């Protein structure tokens, strides 16, 4: 808000004096823009520490932006893009899915009360097993952690919001609707029933013909979309928008864990997306990847576990972050060996992509590979030893207060130690052979994963006062912990003792009945403990004591330096660590003589520009300057937006599209009415989605404006540009996984025996030229835009469109001929890989062309001439798509 922007002069002015920073030069540049004084002109109602209230923002709303409703209003929760609101939405939704997954677990435990129970049918049990795993891992654990991440990370790094607030809201709505879609799958015959690992070929329609199974897979695809959008957003924010003085080493540990988690997510979920897209295509279009004899089954296992092992850390790292924060706060000590702790986490995050085959020791891989993966697996366990010891030694000489958050964190550490030690058993291959597929594995990973949940529950109590402004009831919190901890161990420890029970069976050896009954009792105790929590927290919302800014002695991070809950834009001034500790730089200071020389108010060229036009303003956070230093200086536009209904609409529309798609099977539709209904839903949904996307693109929306304190090493890369780069990085992994799947399949079937599908490479060669030429035309469009030539820009975009349409038309003709020769998607695994991989690329081209079409419409009315960056960013995407083709062409046409 205005308060902050006008104070900006101070830190930048101050910076030139303490130069020598890695990024000082860059910041000086920003400082120069500062001193043209434009920013100091807007507003004028700011005083130090002035609390920001939403009504003031309402006053600023211009016609194209939505007014921001107050907290109490229902509408607020549909339109909010504020990170704190979205954090609360994530937390509540995740808790809902915890209950959903938890009830399924209780159903399973009831079934296992007797060795041969009849409570559930085998198929119901398999669905419960599957849905429990998927819901807990995907729809509860990570989103729960990301509730905190949303709420806390911007506060900890001194950002007013995430880099792309609307995309953040979009992530949430995609997440919610993906969960709803998953719920719908139970009403379409039968949901997935092959375990959360969804092994092939059991996951194919041959063995799971119901529409519900397809729906569940599509729900996962939608969930991955949410994760990807969210990852791009968080990475951009954390790399670009840190307060002055917050270098990476100085980031709070919770923020560190989220940073690493999000990097892992970006890549791991791209691999999962590849697996899911292939599976979707096998189910909907009839490709034969996973049905292929001799390769399909293992291909799934590789793709899934390449994602699956990093996922363990994706789930666990945020819990580790909560433990680090609460251990420091409640022992009153700084974390021992902080740098080593961080280095250990980085090591784990990198190495997590090199251990996946330890899930496949029994698949007949050779001894050398087994040895390699045993070594990496043991290697990855060692950094955790260091982290555990660091946490334990942090207690020494502390003043430990056993509040509820600390009890949960302490308990989590105990559970994690047990989970870790039992995990070392699995690292020894000879033992792993026997533990494979038994309750040892179940017990081990529940100790680790639910151990992580334990810490996150601690996090909920820790940040509850910040999020609500009220204290929870401490005594009830301790009761919750007691029940939780007893229930947890009663539930999972007996599983070690009954470890010879095979996983996922509905009846078992009567010798183990005592252990299974204990586990069932424990499950209900654990479940009941959450009733205490829900009662405690919801009651405290109304009758809890006022928490004040900081209810915890020895808390250090910035979220505790602002009111509870924090005001809309978080800080009373610009947060800065420039002086060595947190300060909020305010107007008075900015005006102190000798500081910020050019920053006197009123010397303004402000208001001269406002030429931003109605482009997507997510693109418009003020970056480098250089092109147009005055951008966003207009007093009427100098604030940020907080409301947009479009993310919700896009989420809803995606839900409808996917619901419609779920009816397809093997390239066709179910006969009769049912098919018609699904097709109708898909068509309506697609139109609705197109409408929603255009609506979102056309809306004026302003994200947080820079310059930001610390952006190293991306000082020179504006937010949107960085976002595009990060997205493309995940796309690289997506295509990499597709190409990997192709190579794996081809090697399994004999590289030289493979039939290259297009016998004539000419169409592919022509397409290569077309795409390469279109890359030049995009560059020409950008140059024209920079020169301010509307016709040049339009000509460049038109040329790109024509070339791209030529590419697709050429491909259509080529495919049509191949179809006529009887080479369809389902003819063989050769044709499947060819059509699907080049088809995925074609889909990227199509999306690019739709963007070009949209940009042409806007360019015709004069857009992009004073801000050509959207053209530049589109160019990045387009070049990437071209480069992918340069790999695909030889792989699928020549060799």
């Amino acid at each position, binding site marked *: 808000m205005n308060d902050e922007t006008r104070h900006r002069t101070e830190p930048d002015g101050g910076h030139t004096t303490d130069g020598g920073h890695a990024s000082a030069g860059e910041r000086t540049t920003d400082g120069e823009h500062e001193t043209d004084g434009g920013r100091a002109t807007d507003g004028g109602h700011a005083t130090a520490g002035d609390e920001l209230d939403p009504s003031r923002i309402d006053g600023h709303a211009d016609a194209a932006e939505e007014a921001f409703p107050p907290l109490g209003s229902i509408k607020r929760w549909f339109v909010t893009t504020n990170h704190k609101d979205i954090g609360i939405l994530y937390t509540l939704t995740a808790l809902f899915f915890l209950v959903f997954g938890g009830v399924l677990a209780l159903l399973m435990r009831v079934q296992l009360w007797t*060795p041969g129970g009849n409570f559930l*049918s*085998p*198929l119901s049990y398999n669905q419960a097993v599957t849905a429990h795993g998927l819901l807990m891992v995907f729809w509860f654990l990570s989103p729960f952690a990301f509730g905190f991440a949303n709420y806390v990370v911007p506060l900890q790094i001194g950002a007013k919001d995430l880099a792309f607030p609307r995309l953040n809201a979009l992530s949430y709505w995609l997440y919610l609707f993906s969960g709803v879609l998953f719920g719908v799958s139970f009403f379409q015959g039968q949901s997935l*029933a*092959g375990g959360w690992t969804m*092994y092939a*070929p059991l996951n194919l329609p041959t063995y799971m013909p119901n529409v519900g199974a397809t729906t569940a897979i599509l729900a996962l695809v939608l969930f991955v979309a949410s994760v990807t959008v969210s990852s791009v957003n968080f990475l951009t924010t954390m790399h670009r928008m840190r307060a002055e*003085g917050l270098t990476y080493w*100085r980031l709070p*540990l919770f923020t560190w864990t989220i940073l690493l988690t999000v990097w892992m997510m970006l890549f791991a979920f791209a691999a999962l997306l590849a697996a899911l897209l292939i599976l979707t295509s096998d189910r909907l279009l009839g490709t034969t990847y996973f049905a292929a004899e001799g390769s399909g*089954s293992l291909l799934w296992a590789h793709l899934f576990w390449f994602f699956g092992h990093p996922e363990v850390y994706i789930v666990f790292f945020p819990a580790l972050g909560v433990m680090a924060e609460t251990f420091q706060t409640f022992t*009153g*000590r700084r*974390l*021992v*060996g*902080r740098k*080593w702790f961080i280095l250990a986490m980085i090591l784990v995050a990198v190495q997590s992509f090199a251990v996946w085959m330890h899930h496949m020791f*029994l698949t007949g891989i050779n*001894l050398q590979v087994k040895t390699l993966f*045993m070594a990496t697996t*043991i290697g990855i366990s*060692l950094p955790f*030893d*260091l982290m555990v*010891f*660091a946490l*334990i*030694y*942090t*207690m020494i*000489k*502390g*003043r430990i207060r*056993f509040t509820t958050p600390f009890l949960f964190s*302490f308990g989590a550490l*105990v559970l994690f*130690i047990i989970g870790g*030690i039992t995990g*070392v058993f699995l690292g*020894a*291959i*000879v033992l792993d*052979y*026997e533990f494979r*597929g038994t309750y040892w594995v179940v017990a081990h990973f529940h100790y680790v994963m639910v151990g992580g949940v334990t810490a996150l529950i601690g996090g909920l109590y820790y940040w509850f006062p910040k999020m609500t402004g009220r204290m929870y009831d401490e005594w009830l919190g301790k009761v919750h912990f007691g029940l939780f901890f007893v229930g947890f161990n009663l539930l999972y420890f007996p599983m070690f003792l009954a470890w010879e029970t*095979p996983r996922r069976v509905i*009846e078992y*050896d009567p*010798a183990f009945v005592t252990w299974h009954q204990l586990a069932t009792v424990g499950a209900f105790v654990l479940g009941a403990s959450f009733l205490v929590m829900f009662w405690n927290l919801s009651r405290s919302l109304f009758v809890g004591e006022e928490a004040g800014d*900081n209810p915890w002695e*020895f*808390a*250090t991070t910035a979220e505790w*330096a602002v009111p509870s809950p924090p005001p809309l834009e978080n800080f009373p001034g610009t947060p800065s*660590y420039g002086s*060595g*500790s*947190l300060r909020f730089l305010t107007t008075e200071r900015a005006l102190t003589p000798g500081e910020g020389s050019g920053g006197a108010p009123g010397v303004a060229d402000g208001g001269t520009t406002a030429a931003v036009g109605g482009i997507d303003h997510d693109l418009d956070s003020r970056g480098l300057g250089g092109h147009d230093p005055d951008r966003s200086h207009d007093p009427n536009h100098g604030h940020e937006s907080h409301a947009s209904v479009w993310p919700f609409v896009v989420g809803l529309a995606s839900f409808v599209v996917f619901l419609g798609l779920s009816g397809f099977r093997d390239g066709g539709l179910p006969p009769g009415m049912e098919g018609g209904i699904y097709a109708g839903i898909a068509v309506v949904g697609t139109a609705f989605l197109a409408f929603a996307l255009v609506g979102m693109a056309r809306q004026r929306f302003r994200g947080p404006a820079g310059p930001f304190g610390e952006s190293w090493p991306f000082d020179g890369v504006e937010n949107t540009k960085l976002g595009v780069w990060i997205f493309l990085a995940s796309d690289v992994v997506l295509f990499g996984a597709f190409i990997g799947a192709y190579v794996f399949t081809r090697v399994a079937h004999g590289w030289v025996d493979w039939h290259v599908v297009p016998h004539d490479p000419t169409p592919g060669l022509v397409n290569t030229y077309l795409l390469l030429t279109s890359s030049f035309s995009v560059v020409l469009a950008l140059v024209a835009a920079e020169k301010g030539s509307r016709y040049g820009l339009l000509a460049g975009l038109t040329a790109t469109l024509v070339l791209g349409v030529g590419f697709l038309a050429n491909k259509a003709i080529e495919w049509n001929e191949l179809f006529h020769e009887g080479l369809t998607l389902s003819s063989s695994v050769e044709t499947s890989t060819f059509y699907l991989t080049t088809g995925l690329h074609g889909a990227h081209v199509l999306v690019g062309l739709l963007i070009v079409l949209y940009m042409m419409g806007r360019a015709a009315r004069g857009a992009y001439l004073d801000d050509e960056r959207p053209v530049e960013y589109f160019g990045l995407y387009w070049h990437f798509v071209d480069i992918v083709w340069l790999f695909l062409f030889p792989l699928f046409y020549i060799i």
Partner: protein
Amino acid sequence: MHTVGSVVAVVPLHGEGILPTGTRADVFREIFWVFLLLGTLVGVVVIVYMFYNAYKYRDGGARAGAVDGRERGAADDRPTLGELPTGGGGGRKLFLSFALSTVIVISLIAWTYGTLLYVEAAPTEQEDDVLEIRVEAYQFGWAFTYPNGHTADGTLRVPQGETVELVVTSRDVFHNFGIPELRVKADAIPGQTTTARFTPSETGTYQANCYELCGAGHSYMTAEVVVMEPDDYERWYENTASNSETPSNATTANSTTANASASVGGDR
């Protein structure tokens, strides 16, 4: 290192020293017990130490005095709101513990790796002596094919004391064939084979289970494994060449198990 050695010494060792040998069941038992002992020891020590520190440094009236004493340094230097984080001290202790845990884990794994080589490298001598049986999984059962082409469904018969190599595959989805008592396990993957060797040392009837979720009948996807006296086995095997036990008459196989001396997992 010292700890490892002493614990290993407690465990009964087969003749040739520190590496466990014998059947897969023996090997598993020995390694499992060493891990269990050492794991419990480490776990108990670490967790007790955690509780000790948590108690010792608890915040409370009794400790107010102590803070003035030797711990003044720490007490004066509590974290404050808005400070920039610095790495706390205690690095040396941290690294000692880390190094110790590394040594324990790596020596344990190195030790079991020797066993892995032993288990995996067994097949070199007398290739002819190995009895190769093909195991085919299907939803929801197991078919066994003997070298003479005899096929049996639901019952695997093997001679005591002879090395058996199972060549495992699947007709439909991913399964996993395991005989828990004999510590034998192999994935059953469609279009691919995996192998598992074992040498049954005692006669009896054991149960094989499926260890990978494969559909509605997964829980019931069991087979009987009958380890027979070598002579009995030979007699039985002679008679199989002509008549196959096909799925249709598979139930008759159960009547021949009267000599069962051990039974796993109860009767289904």
